[in-house]
């Protein structure tokens, strides 16, 4: 897990991160959103010890970064937005370099490297020099390098930039896989719909401050006032419409053919109550979920307008 207390980062006369507090638990995928210059990269670089904070405490997987730097960063995998690689090495040699750096025993390195090459779909490029890879492939190779030591905490700075649609689907699947493994992921991206697909929680930074933070649905609800629910009904549509019409938290209902959406003013508890009521009233519900596409709106409403 990641825990940050009162983090401040200054560069000369510029305050990049201002009194930031953050806690990201196991199995959580935290999306860090903000315009250029908001302090996202500075936060990430401080978290991995590449930038010395002016003050503040950082704990990675429970280890204090300041007191036990080597142990703390040993738990972390980091991927920057632009992937630097040794261009005179092949993909396999490049991964082997970092497998060696992270102390993976010699006899395990080969199978581990093959597994991660397959995960990022670069098996065929195993013996190709990295100089010949496209930017998207280099991003994928870097992702493999980041995951190779199986870190408990993974920090990804704009990992999807430069990736083609195939790479982005791979990234999404890998994120979901990491979530299932209870790993802690901090990811920044300007592609907000993508973040909403796999992030469990988000934080919006602006001018070095964390403006809003929380679970995606909670943030959406708190910023936009009400969130959008999507429901698929198998039968009992009339009863469904009656219940919704009687509920003051529910806004206008739209949709046909058993697939509906409506505005809902409530958090997880309220949503679960509504679902229970529907099921209890004999409405057969095939799916009941909060739409997560609201991040762009949230971001714009919070005031950050510089999405590039």
């Amino acid at each position: 897990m990641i825990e940050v207390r009162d983090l401040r980062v200054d560069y000369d006369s510029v305050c990049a991160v201002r009194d930031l507090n953050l806690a990201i638990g196991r199995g959580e995928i935290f999306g860090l959103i903000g315009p250029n210059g908001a302090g996202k990269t500075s936060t990430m670089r401080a978290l991995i010890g590449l930038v010395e904070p002016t003050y503040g405490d950082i704990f990675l997987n429970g280890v204090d970064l300041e007191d036990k730097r080597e142990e703390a960063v040993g738990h972390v995998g980091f991927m920057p937005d632009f992937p630097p690689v040794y261009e005179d090495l092949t993909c396999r040699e490049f991964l082997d370099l970092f497998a060696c750096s992270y102390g993976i025993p010699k006899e395990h390195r080969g199978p581990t490297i093959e597994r991660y090459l397959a995960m990022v779909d670069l098996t065929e490029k195993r013996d190709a020099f990295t100089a010949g890879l496209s930017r998207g492939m280099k991003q994928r190779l870097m992702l493999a390098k980041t995951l190779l030591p199986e870190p408990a905490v993974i920090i990804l700075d704009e990992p999807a930039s430069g990736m083609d649609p195939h790479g982005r689907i791979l990234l999404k699947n890998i994120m979901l896989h990491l979530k299932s493994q209870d790993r802690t992921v901090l990811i920044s991206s300007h592609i907000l719909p993508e973040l909403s697909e796999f992030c469990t929680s988000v934080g919006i930074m602006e001018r070095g401050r964390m403006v809003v933070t929380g679970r995606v649905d909670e943030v959406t609800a708190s910023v936009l006032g009400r969130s959008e629910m999507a429901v698929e009904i198998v039968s009992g549509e009339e009863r469904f419409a009656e219940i919704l019409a009687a509920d003051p938290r529910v806004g206008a209902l739209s949709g046909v053919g058993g697939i509906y959406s409506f505005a809902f003013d409530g958090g997880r508890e309220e949503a679960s109550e509504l679902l229970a009521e529907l099921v209890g009233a004999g409405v057969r519900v095939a799916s009941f979920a909060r739409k997560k596409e609201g991040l762009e709106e949230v971001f714009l409403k919070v005031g950050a307008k510089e999405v590039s």
Partner: protein
Amino acid sequence: MSLFQEAILDNPIVVKHVRSRLRRDQVVAPVLGTVLLCALLTSIGMWRGVLGTPTLFYWFLVGQAAILFLSGTSQVATVVAHAKDSGIIDFHRISPVRPWALLTGFILGGAVREWLCYACTLPFVLLSAAVGAVSLPGLLMIVVDTIAVALLYHTMAALMGLVSPKPRNVAGGILGIVFAFHSILLSIPLVSPISAPAVPTILPTLAQAMEWGPMMPGLARPTFFGMTLPGFFLSLLHQLPFLFFAFVAAERKMRSDRAYLYSKPGVLWFYAVIAFLLLGDAAAILERTWGLPFALAPVVVTYGLAAAGVFLITAVTPSAGDFANGVLRARKQGMAAAPAWGDLAPNWLPAAGFCIILLATSSLSATLAGQGGWSGPIIGASFVGALVVYYFSCARQAFDLMFRKNGASYLAMLLLAVWILPVMLGGMGMAFGLDRVFAFTVMGLSPIFGIGLVAWSGQGGEVIPGAGMAVSSSVLFSIAFTQLRLQAERRARDAALKMRDV
């Protein structure tokens, strides 16, 4: 894991460079070229009957120097600068590999092809030694010292790669330094009887191994603290401390890009070691050469340590940004100011330490000299030297805080005006027949001339014009720059605290 394993065998950076720089297509040509060249030289030696003479042996040494000192140094600088420029060094920084092991990996791995080529020359050199060019112990000393000097240059190259703001030019820069270093230090004993400046080079070892006694008595019997020591020992005595402190600085930069070259205690240790070496060499510089009295040794020590102090204080002077960070961190932790020994504290503590070491060393050298000793003018010269280091450190800190990134440029302009121009103007004035008293007074403004003037003023009871100017200007500058530093610190502290609250 043992240190040897961590440093070499299991060092990922070494393994990386062994892979990338020793691929068949990259290694065959240089290795084959080296072997063929050595074979050709050996054949010529055998054909002309000079295989067992020093002449042919020197050609082997020149080749080895070209491989390790030039090509190897350039490679290490390029490899480190590229890793920094591309940003891949950050991945190594956050890996569990310790910074010293990373640095060792770059130093040894960056020049791995050059080390291989060097190894290819050794059988030929051994053959030349076996037939009488040099004794086997002599050859061993040369090999050890060659490796020590190569490691020193490679470490300096790695350091330059890590600190250079323009990584693409770093290889040229370090080669320029190595070339200048060799040209100056090696040429002095070759064209004059002064041998001491050559001790950090391989020359004293060569003089011992090749028995140059009749040709260069100074190099054949070099002294340290007045004792005659083997040249090999003396060379290592000078090279290894510089290798160590270059490694320490590079290790700190490897750990963090924003780190200063030395910690404040570390820079004082480095300064003390320089003082020790200078003290030991001062006698040799003066005694063996111009027949000058050894009492002038304190002056040589003062000049040397003042120059070293001015150079080293810049390595521990915090920038305006870091000073502000120190203020904010201290406030957060409930302290009035950043800890004085910390990297973010102002540089007054190492500056004070430098002054104490300078005065103590100069005093010690006067005592050791025993001729004239710690007399008034020598004391004066030493104090001027100490004040120069002090006011420079104050000026450096104040200018950095006031003008931020332009501070160093403005300070350089100021120093040009008060250190260089007076010497030039006074010298030109004298050349054009200006009054000697006036010219010396102008030149005394600069410590470059002033320290010598103060020391000279006591010789034979003669009053030297300009000595008073040297003393008074250094006192005046010390007071002025102390005030400036205090004011700049106060303003920077207030600005930092104001920024925190915005």
